[in-house]
């Protein structure tokens, strides 16, 4: 027994040497950066000046009083709630449809998934043009005689919804692929048995297929929470966070504070908060998953 333990310890030591490069890489690059950011959050600094002022937790206190910070949180919650529900609903439905006898399934899969692999930086100018009052959508409405003015990006109460539409268009493919893979694991005989017992298509979908895909839904929720907190490219490239912070997210606000206004310490405090929220969000969704299972 003692010998076995000794062997096991030896094996563990051998394993330790093998993971050491990756471990050091992780510690140096990631954890060092996190601690550096935390240290930076207690400093008032423009990023270049030799003068750094230690301000303790002032940047965090300032953050909680900052209306734009709370606007970012509000936008993130709305954005996550709406994009998560619609994106996954569409992804689930598309996956279910493509598991039935659809003609040209590969073509449909490609069409649904292609937006996911397109870079937001490539698509942003297209959407800016599309949603411009002089753009393609306006031309279509004008030609069709529909009295709608496409000035949605210029209005604080509609700009966020335009961005959400873009995100849903772009990432529904991801939900679709994951649900499609999850549905492939379901034993068809179980579904056939339900059909024989008289269950309708919708009932099977809702009471059997959807619960089976719950793990996928939770994973998508976790990715969605982290994605919503990290949102930067689409709002920055399409609206630059405007008008008047109506589409501001933590990512764009960190950039604005750190780069545009050279408040590197405050930007670091916002980054620390983002990290905390991402970890808590991931932890909660993970717990929900474990609880369910």
């Amino acid at each position: 027994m003692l010998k076995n333990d000794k062997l096991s310890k030896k094996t563990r030591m051998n394993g330790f040497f093998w993971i050491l490069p990756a471990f050091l890489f992780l510690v140096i690059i990631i954890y060092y950066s996190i601690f550096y950011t935390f240290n930076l959050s207690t400093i008032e600094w423009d990023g270049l000046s030799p003068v750094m002022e230690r301000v303790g937790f002032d940047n965090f206190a300032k953050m909680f009083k900052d209306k734009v910070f709370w606007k970012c949180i509000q936008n993130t919650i709305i954005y996550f709630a709406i994009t998560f529900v619609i994106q996954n609903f569409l992804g689930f439905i598309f996956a279910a449809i493509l598991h039935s006898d659809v003609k040209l399934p590969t073509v449909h899969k490609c069409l649904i998934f292609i937006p996911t692999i397109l870079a937001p930086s490539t698509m942003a100018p297209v959407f800016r043009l599309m949603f411009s009052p002089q753009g393609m959508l306006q031309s279509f409405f004008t030609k069709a005689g529909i009295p709608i003015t496409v000035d949605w990006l210029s209005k604080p109460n509609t700009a966020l919804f335009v961005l959400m539409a873009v995100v849903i268009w772009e990432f529904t493919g991801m939900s679709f692929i994951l649900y499609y893979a999850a549905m492939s694991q379901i034993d068809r005989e179980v579904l056939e048995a339900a059909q024989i017992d008289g269950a309708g298509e919708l009932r099977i979908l809702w009471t059997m297929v959807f619960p089976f895909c719950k793990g996928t839904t939770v994973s998508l929720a976790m990715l969605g929470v982290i994605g919503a907190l990290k949102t930067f490219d689409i709002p920055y490239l399409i609206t630059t966070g405007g008008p008047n912070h109506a589409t501001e997210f933590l990512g764009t606000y960190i950039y604005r504070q750190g780069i545009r206004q050279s408040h590197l310490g405050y930007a670091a405090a916002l980054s620390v908060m983002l990290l905390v929220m991402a970890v808590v969000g991931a932890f909660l969704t993970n717990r929900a998953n474990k609880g369910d299972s």
Partner: protein
Amino acid sequence: MKARKTKLMALLLTTSVVLAACGDAGTGSGNGNDAASGQTAPAAGDTAGTASGAADLVWWGWTPGSPLNEQYIAKFNETYPDVRITWKQTTVDDYDAAIKPALANGEGVDIFEVSAGSANGGVQIFGSKAIDLTDALKGYLGDDYADKLNEASLASMTVDGQIKALGVGTCYAGNLWINQDLFDQYNVKVPTNMAEWKEACATFEANGIIGFVQGAGQGAFNMDTWHAICDNVKPGEFTKATRGEAEWTDETFVTALNLWKSLFDEGIMQDGALGIQQYPEANNLFLSGQAAMIMMGSWYTMNCLPDTMRANMEAASSTDEPFAMVPINFPDIAGTGNVGYVFCDIDYATAVSTSAKDQKAATDFALWLGASEEGQQMIADSLNLVPVLKSVSPNWDNVTLVNGEKQNDAVQAYLTNAVNNPDNPRFGGIGADLNQAMMDVLAGVASGTMTAEEGVAHLAEVQAEQ
């Protein structure tokens, strides 16, 4: 034996990773220490390196852009053939993000553009990575160098008593540019007040053309328009407020914010103005002939040159022939009669990086561009900026405009009026926080989420915190 070998290999691999990481960290910390210790860079003449030999430099900036920058370099190389300069351009919005890490790392930046105040590349921030050019300038222009240069070029580029960059040219804002050909075609009166402006916009609108275009999603240009409105209401009050000599809560600014809002409500600003950017969208609409008026400053004068305009029109996806664009005063929308006021800053200045590979050669370039007759004449003739060297002005005999008959007098009168305007900085006196607050207030008032009174209160609050 085999296990020991494997362990040894793992250890070697680990050691190499650690050493590599330490090597990188060492470099970084070295640079950081330079900054942290606040060491001053040696004067240009003291620099080691290939001062009189070949040099290979990188010049970072956002303006005026190709092909002008390459033309400046080519002209510089006629005098300094051994100095190779590569122009590295970013967009206005991305400049700070791109150059800050490059300067912090101390590699790859030899010469870089800075601007006054809170605009991108603000010298107050980036000046800490630039050498002091005072002695070099003194050596080049003599002890009376200050008399030979535009006052703002020195004042706005001096940080803690050191000249951190040499101004290249000033730019003026506060006026509109109009497409004179469209005005002639539709027989529209050039607007001088609110009623005429509305009428002009309505006429163009009826003919499928945007009357006035502004990319109000890009806050800096909103600040220009509002500054012009403030000067229209009460000249000079805006500048006084930025200097703390007047209150933002004064009635002048409430009136000016209400007038700003009225541009959106009265059909002068195009639909969806807050959703588009001045560059590229508004600029493209104007240059492609889809809009008749735009709020731009003296930097737009270069589009009066046929080749420059053609290139910029092509960039705006227009294959039309260049048109006659003319500067006009900001209309008297307050009804006060106060018109013709413009405000100015050094558009950009050339700084030499503390980590430049060859500071002597880099300084030579900065001096050539900002203080030599040859360099400044080139700046003047490109009509991009008004030169900072007082002895230089555009050589109108060498300058051919798109339509001399329509443009010559107007452009010359505009530039003469601009240089004779009183002290009225554009962004030079505005800190980064006030700048952001002003952009927020203008967008908030325009979109109706903030009243004029709330707006001025916010400006006053931010000013007090600065």
